[in-house]
């Protein structure tokens, strides 16, 4: 009886897929690392966006509060509520005129608005909310500044918010 052995013949010219256990582990580890990296990158970008928004809010509120206590603006007291000495042609910074506060208008800058602006003297004789906005916002910041209003020491509180 003539039998031929059932043997696979090796053909050097054929490229096959080499699969080994260690290659599989390496592949799984690689996939895991890529997924961890993608997840971390996502969290990182979310944090950066939140910080950018917070910085924008802080910056604009500081600028508005500083403009109020350092400038004179007859059109809008929120941008300058100080007394002006016309003889000396000089703005008296940190000295607020209560008469100017009646002429206060809202300002909006690229999604930022002033929710509330109020002033309260330390002896409690003057207490005035000179700007109030009813819009709701969860991202707000308040800046406190120390001024003189009609010669009395007072605290100004400017609350800035982001439009949602």
């Amino acid at each position: 009886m003539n039998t031929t052995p059932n043997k696979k013949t090796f053909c050097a010219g054929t490229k096959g897929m080499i699969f080994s256990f260690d290659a599989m582990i390496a592949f799984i580890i690689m996939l895991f690392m890529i997924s961890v990296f993608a997840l971390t990158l996502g969290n990182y970008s979310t944090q950066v966006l939140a910080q950018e928004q917070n910085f924008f809010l802080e910056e604009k509120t500081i600028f508005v509060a500083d403009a109020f206590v350092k400038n004179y603006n007859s059109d809008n007291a929120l941008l300058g509520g100080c007394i002006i000495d016309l003889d000396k042609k000089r703005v008296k910074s940190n000295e607020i005129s209560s008469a100017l506060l009646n002429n206060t208008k809202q300002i909006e800058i690229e999604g930022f608005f002033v929710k509330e602006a109020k002033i309260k003297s330390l002896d409690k004789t003057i207490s005035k909310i000179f700007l109030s906005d009813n819009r709701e916002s969860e991202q707000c910041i308040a800046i406190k500044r120390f001024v003189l209003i009609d010669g009395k020491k007072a605290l100004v509180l400017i609350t800035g918010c982001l439009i949602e």
Partner: protein
Amino acid sequence: MNKGFIFSFEAAISMLLFGLMITMIFPMQAVSLKELIILQQENDLLKLWSINYPSQNEMEIDAKQLFSDTELFVNNNNVFFTGNKKDNSVSSEAIIFDNYLNETKVRVVVYFD
């Protein structure tokens, strides 16, 4: 023929991932304008004191309206200290002249986290 440096595609990906992971180890620094706000508030105090020439007690009351952790020096003498000393601080100094041109050196130090 000299042997060259072999840099495989897998090695490039591994190095890239390694580099990116190292950059993520360092925490992101929080950007804040807190120091600027404190500096402006300190300047408010000094500006008003240069107009009113208050007593040291009044200075203490004014400073407490704005800051919880603060220290005040008048002519290099510690006048008062409230709160706790913390890791960071912002200091402002001014020389105030009264109506009789008497000189007073005032320094406000504010501590914050």
